[in-house]
């Protein structure tokens, strides 16, 4: 066991969006989260790096880090948690006033205060890895959606996190650009990155995921290997959801 989140509970006003959620992620594993709109997938992902503050719950990384949200955690602990995971957004959220290279160097340079030469070299390697070695000095608006999302992935990788979080990274993309982003994610999976991916791409989930979580209404209804959850779900609700996605 590598990362475990226990008892994560989150409400917006009266609406309880996450109800006592437990999730464990083994090192090098890929966990895919699926579920209907509004079921709390994004919120769960955002709780994992404290972009949303759960009211309750703990997150531990191995034995060397623990954060307990019930005891209002200190800023420094929250920052440590955030640097342990890289987040890739559905809408990329690149910094529009910075070039691709600057987007990637921003974190290591100004948060982690690493040496500029080292950081530039790292950023070049990462942009090369996502297939953008020739786009270093372009601004986000000069890039296609797929290219922007790949910069987004490189930016998240640049802080050298232990965990990568993806929130529907391809759902804002034109269909013909989805493949290039999924390919980068497959490469990361093969390199042994630990990832949590919220996705509607069930085929992709089936190919890369070690574990699939089906969420509905703020709870994890079913979890297990993709062959189970996606092909022969034990729960009726899972079955209905998968059928709806497969034959809309």
């Amino acid at each position, binding site marked *: 066991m590598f990362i475990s989140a226990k008892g994560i509970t989150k409400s917006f006003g009266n609406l309880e969006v996450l109800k006592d959620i437990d999730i464990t992620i083994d090192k090098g594993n890929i966990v895919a989260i699926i579920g209907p709109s509004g079921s709390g997938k994004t919120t769960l992902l955002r709780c994992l*790096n404290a*972009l949303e503050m759960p009211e309750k719950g703990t997150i531990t990384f191995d034995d060397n880090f623990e954060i307990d949200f019930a005891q209002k955690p200190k*800023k420094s602990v929250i*920052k440590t948690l*955030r*640097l342990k*995971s*890289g*987040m890739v*957004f559905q*809408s990329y*959220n*690149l*910094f*529009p*006033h910075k070039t691709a290279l600057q987007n990637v160097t*921003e*974190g290591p340079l*100004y*948060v*982690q205060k690493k040496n500029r030469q080292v950081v530039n070299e790292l950023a070049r390697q990462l942009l090369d890895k996502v297939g953008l070695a020739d786009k270093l000095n372009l*601004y*986000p*608006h000069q890039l296609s959606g797929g290219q922007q999302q790949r910069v987004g992935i490189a*930016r*998240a990788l*640049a*802080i050298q996190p232990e965990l990568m979080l993806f929130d529907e990274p391809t759902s804002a993309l034109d269909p013909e650009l989805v493949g290039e982003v999924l390919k980068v994610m497959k490469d990361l999976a093969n390199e042994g990155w630990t990832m949590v991916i919220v996705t509607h791409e069930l085929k992709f989930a089936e190919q890369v995921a070690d574990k699939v979580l089906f969420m509905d209404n703020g709870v994890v209804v079913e979890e297990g290997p993709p062959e189970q959850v996606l092909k022969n779900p034990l729960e009726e609700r899972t079955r209905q959801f998968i059928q709806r996605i497969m034959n809309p």
Partner: protein
Amino acid sequence: MAKMFLNSYLYSIAADMGGWELFQNSLWPMILGGIKNTIPLTFVSFVLGMFIALLTAVMRLSTTKLLTIPARMYVSAIRGTPLLVQLFIVFFGLGSIGITIDPFPSAVIAFSLNVGAYSSEIIRASIQSIPKGQWEAATTIGMSYSQTLIRIIIPQATRVSIPPLSNTFISLVKDTSLASLILVTELFRKAQEIAARTYDFMLLYIEAAMLYWVICFILSIVQDKIEHRLERYVAR
């Protein structure tokens, strides 16, 4: 002494010369008033005003009442009172209770406080116009609130606020003419002084108006250039 001489000189020549000559002869004193007072007053007040505005905007965006309330009151007080009254309070008002400040610095204080309040609203709105995703992206790479503000949000907000702030700047150029009423010998006061001797109000005030127009015209060209430059990272 020299000033009296200049005035009587202008008076005597005005008597027996045409409007064109008066126009030419009064042009340089007015331009000088502009160079010595109008332009420095505008620039200094604007720069100080920007610092005040940024500070006020950040205070208003904070979550502690200790910061938001004074900021709101300041903005409300400045926006709710005439600029001329503010100017008179700083110069004549403070002067009458023993705090004597020279005309030029008095004008700087009044104008920078005024510009600071109005511009803080522009800056606040432009900071708020930056999508939430920018804050979140910065947060996920570990940036603190102030780092995010300085490195990510303000650079983008600056681009948004350049057009309205340029308008504020151009308005300020014209508003500095009010400083003539607290004895700052800027462009318009020069026009008034000469007009008082020659009685050629129409000619001299139109001449002053033209000079303001020229300054504002040049500034609007500069404004276009800056806006163009800042657009380099925006979708075409």
